[in-house]
């Protein structure tokens, strides 16, 4: 099992459930205490970091590769890009499904709480990270015969 497979397992088993629960914290704080700058800022930072964490992985691994510190070859890069795209495809379908569900089940006055939107986004990140890690594991598993121990 190489470094990226280990990271994917940790993400799948720990990060996704923790994010799905703790990601709601800024939303709860804003609901209770009102839209303060700090809460809004923490929500924006957390969601941006969660949704675009793959960019950081790509950037830092490519940088360390240039310094010859780690093994991050073309195959790892290709796997990361493919799994990210798979994650985005499922995320898009998730957004459509939520939209249709809300549309169909809205109350008679046809309005929903404004907090539904951020909750959908936070749970969308959990879906995205789950699919990204899952497809990474599948891809390494399929072609991982020569992976490092």
């Amino acid at each position, binding site marked *: 099992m190489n470094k990226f497979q280990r990271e994917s397992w940790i993400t799948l088993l720990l990060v996704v459930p923790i994010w799905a629960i703790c990601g709601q914290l800024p939303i709860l704080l*804003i*609901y209770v205490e*009102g*839209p303060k700058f700090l809460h*809004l800022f923490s*929500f*924006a930072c957390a*969601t*941006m970091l969660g*949704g*675009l964490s793959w*960019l950081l992985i790509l950037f830092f691994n490519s940088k360390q590769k240039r310094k010859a510190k780690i093994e991050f070859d073309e195959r790892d890069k290709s796997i990361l*890009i493919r799994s*990210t*795209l798979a994650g*985005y*495809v499922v995320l*898009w*379908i998730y*957004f*459509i499904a*939520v*939209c*249709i569900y*809300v*549309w*169909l089940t*809205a109350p008679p006055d*046809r*309005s*929903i*709480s*404004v*907090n*539904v*939107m*951020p909750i*959908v*986004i936070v749970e*969308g990140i959990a879906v995205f990270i789950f699919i990204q890690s899952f497809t990474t594991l599948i891809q390494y598993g399929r072609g991982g015969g020569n992976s490092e121990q």
Partner: protein
Amino acid sequence: MIQTKIESWFYFFLGTACFLIPGAVAIFIAYDRGISFAPVLMFTGTVIWAGLFWLLPFTFGKLGKRKKKVTFDERDQLIQKKAVMVAYVVLWLYFVTASVTAWCLVGPQGSISVNIMPLTLLGGLVIFTFVQGLASTILYGRNDKGEKA
């Protein structure tokens, strides 16, 4: 100008309108006459088709390769993947901004019309299509030194 480059120009100018009009019409019908099967199907079809349209060249490119008619080579694939990823980054930032803006405008105790969610999704689609077309056009423009007319 190669075929894929023409497609990216087409996508840049006409893609947005092609996907925006049927989606907006579906939301308007649902708003005006209430939820029924037809507008929901129209909206779902439009957003799935438009949001995952970028997957088509990969599928047909592979089919064309098998028939030895290569119109979508490795370079096109790389450009397409890069453009899609850039578009997804912008789309993600748009979703985070939309939910924070709704929070600030309405307040955490407030409610929004149920039509805001599909409209946000449609807006995301427009941004995604626009950015993808723009990124492909820029990437082809930057890399078209050795292409055949």
